């Protein structure tokens, strides 16, 4: 039976430390960028936004919203616009895969993505001399001119599949497949698992009345859910990340 890997991020647990961003970048060999790079021109496959309720004084509240590729399950916008078939939805896992070797660099997918979760390599990847020794051998570096995004640490999935195959199993052990951001979160704010399995904790958390998805009205069936007991946070879910969120992150 096919899996449907997804996440539930509890925003009430997120302290905005940024460990998920750093761990993701290290795992996926994200290069350094020139100082002039911004949140749009740099590479941040996992980006934590700071969002406020806009109230001044003691009633002021803020949450941190980690945003990565949502791995949309229905009419995935980036897949339908790609002229190169460089984006595919893996039917076995539900992961939206970006294949840099096929990418033309047209950036249609970046325009189509409602979550701004895709990034373009504006510069050749580079590291300070010697730092390339610390690159993760499980992930190839990408070149200038291609788009990249979160692929749910696909290298870790391969390692888990190899381990399962070596043990003669058809299914992976979920304990062997934990994306870097999930592993790094010091408050266990990110739950990861198989949404297709009703007994999986992530599946149960996704059915909680406090769970919601960003821009659910678009009908793309994202596989990243968020959770918060604060009503104002849930109300933000239908606003565009390009509107309120990016304004508020400079609070």
């Amino acid at each position, binding site marked *: 039976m096919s899996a449907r890997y997804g996440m539930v991020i*509890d925003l009430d*647990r997120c*302290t*905005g*430390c*940024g*460990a998920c*961003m*750093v761990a993701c*970048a*290290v795992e996926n*060999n*994200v290069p*350094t*960028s020139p*100082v002039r*790079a*911004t*949140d749009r021109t*740099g590479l*941040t496959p996992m*980006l934590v*936004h700071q969002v406020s309720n806009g109230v001044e*004084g*003691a009633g*002021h*509240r*803020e*949450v*941190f919203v980690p945003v990565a590729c949502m791995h949309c399950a229905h009419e995935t916008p980036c897949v339908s616009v790609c002229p190169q078939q460089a984006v595919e939805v893996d039917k076995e896992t539900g992961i939206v895969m970006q294949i840099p*070797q*096929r990418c033309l660099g047209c950036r249609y997918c970046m325009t189509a993505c409602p979550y701004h979760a895709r990034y373009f390599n504006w510069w*050749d*990847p*580079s*590291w*300070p*001399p*010697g*730092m*390339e*020794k*610390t*690159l*993760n*051998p*499980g*992930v*190839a*570096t*990408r*070149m200038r001119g291609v788009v990249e995004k979160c692929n749910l640490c696909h290298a870790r999935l391969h390692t888990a599949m190899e381990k399962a195959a070596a043990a003669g199993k058809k299914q992976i052990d979920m304990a062997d497949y934990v994306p870097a951001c999930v*592993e*790094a979160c*010091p*408050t*266990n*704010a990110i739950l990861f698992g198989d949404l297709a399995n009703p007994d999986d904790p992530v599946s149960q958390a996704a059915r909680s009345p406090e769970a919601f998805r960003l821009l659910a009205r678009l009908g793309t069936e994202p596989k990243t859910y968020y959770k918060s*007991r604060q009503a104002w946070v849930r109300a933000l879910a239908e606003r565009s990340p390009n509107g309120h969120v990016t304004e508020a*992150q400079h609070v």
Partner: protein
Amino acid sequence: MKVSRRDLLLGTAGLTAGIFFTPVPWKVLDDVSIWTQNWPWIPQPARGPVTTKLASCTLCASGCALRVRMAAGYPVGISGNASHPLTKGALCPLGFAAHQLNWHPARLREVRHRGRTASWDEARAAFEKASAEGPIAVVDGRSGRAASTVLQSFADKHNGTYEVVLTAEERALSPYAQWVGVPVSALGYDLENARTIVSFGAPLLDGWGVPGRFTHLWSERAASASDPQLRLIQIEPAFSRTAAAAWHWVPTCQGTEALLAASLAKVLVEEHLVPAQGPLPPASLTEAAAQTGLTPTAIRDLAYSMVERRPTLVIGSDDNPAIAALNVLLGSLGTPGGIVKKPTTPSVTLQISAKNTPPRAVLLDSSVPWEYVPASGVEVFRFAAWDGGGNRADWLLPSPGFLEETTDLPTPPTSARAVYGIAPSLLTASAQLGTAADFLQQIDATLPTVEQTIHARCEAIFRSHRGSVCGEKSSPITGFESAVKFEEALRSGAVWLDESPAATPLKCALKTWPTNNPAHTTGNWANTWAPPVMPTLAAKLYRESSLRETPQRSQS
């Protein structure tokens, strides 16, 4: 056969059309696109066997436990080690990219004397000359290590002084140390048993103490609950990360923390919320309300919140005695869930020598923060792995970087239980690098070595028969055959954890409410948190996400 012009054109057109019915153009396109992914100037990961080793972070005094993924002999990934009793697998964000620091553009690789390249022999000769001319002040930023013993021994033997630069967390404990008459290193916060924590600007969820300890506690008992088991009240002018996660945030005016503490104490005593004993503050609620920006009702409500769920622990961000005195009033000194005295690690002692003679030269260990400014007019020998502001030092001496040095890890500040670990070296340091302890030993061979001290400490802990060893699984220390086996376990990433201390009542000498309070203690920690040299990738991500301000020098 004669080939006419028509034949040539027909043949060319036929070939051109026919080639599209073969896989050749598609294969060529595919190969070209793959080839362009592999330009020779694009770095590729090194290939080699991947192994996982246990280690400890040495970026600060917390000593967080790491699982380091190694490939081709180099660290390629870091994650937390859940078996550590304090960190429980959590790390601060810098830890995840710390293995890149050794190749940071600001890395020190050679001896520098006032901006020019020098040699170790020149540095040693200059230090010996200075030592002969007058006393040397040896400054340590992380006391209690085996290396600290070497530094202290040198100072004692050569009529010098040994000084320790306290962290903000240690400074916050210093009023209690003074009132109770014990060293700061003997005190800790019993966070685990507290039910209400009142923080006066301490960045509890932003790198305070051992980062994983409070984060884990908050995550288990406070997050995602409208009525949490652990109530965190954050009193701070700015809306920090800790304020965002707190059960209740109290915005006050900058610099009025001592006055607010005094007014809270007055409400606690006058409304019989605590026994009327101990020091009484000469505060006026109306005046406090006017200066703090809170209403008298808000101050009274805050006082009631503090005692609604006991034990209550008050944590200051610095050595403000008025904030510390609140704990005395609340009876949170020497009781579970308060400030507790912990048994010291066997064989780990600290003697701070203070002499008034002005030193001829100052030797700064690599653990001393860059913000520390030595007295002017003295020759400064500074050990450092990264250049965080070298213009303040006459001599810059390159030290081993991350995972390049074997060092022991004494109990971190704020911990309520003694722990001891050994951070193994996973990388071979260049011959051009040296530690302050090695440097002093080359000058005086009679000093104890770091390795000897670590052996002696392991022996002493083993003989104490106290505590347990937390490795892949926890086992009592009595289960080890010998001190050698115990030391081997520590060197392979396990940590010794002392038994939970029995609550020791602490006799407090504070009789009058402290009035010598600093003007202000809290600052915007979120913006000053970043160290001078950050892992390159972490600096990039914070810059691009605007989550934190990063120092310009770490941008590369």
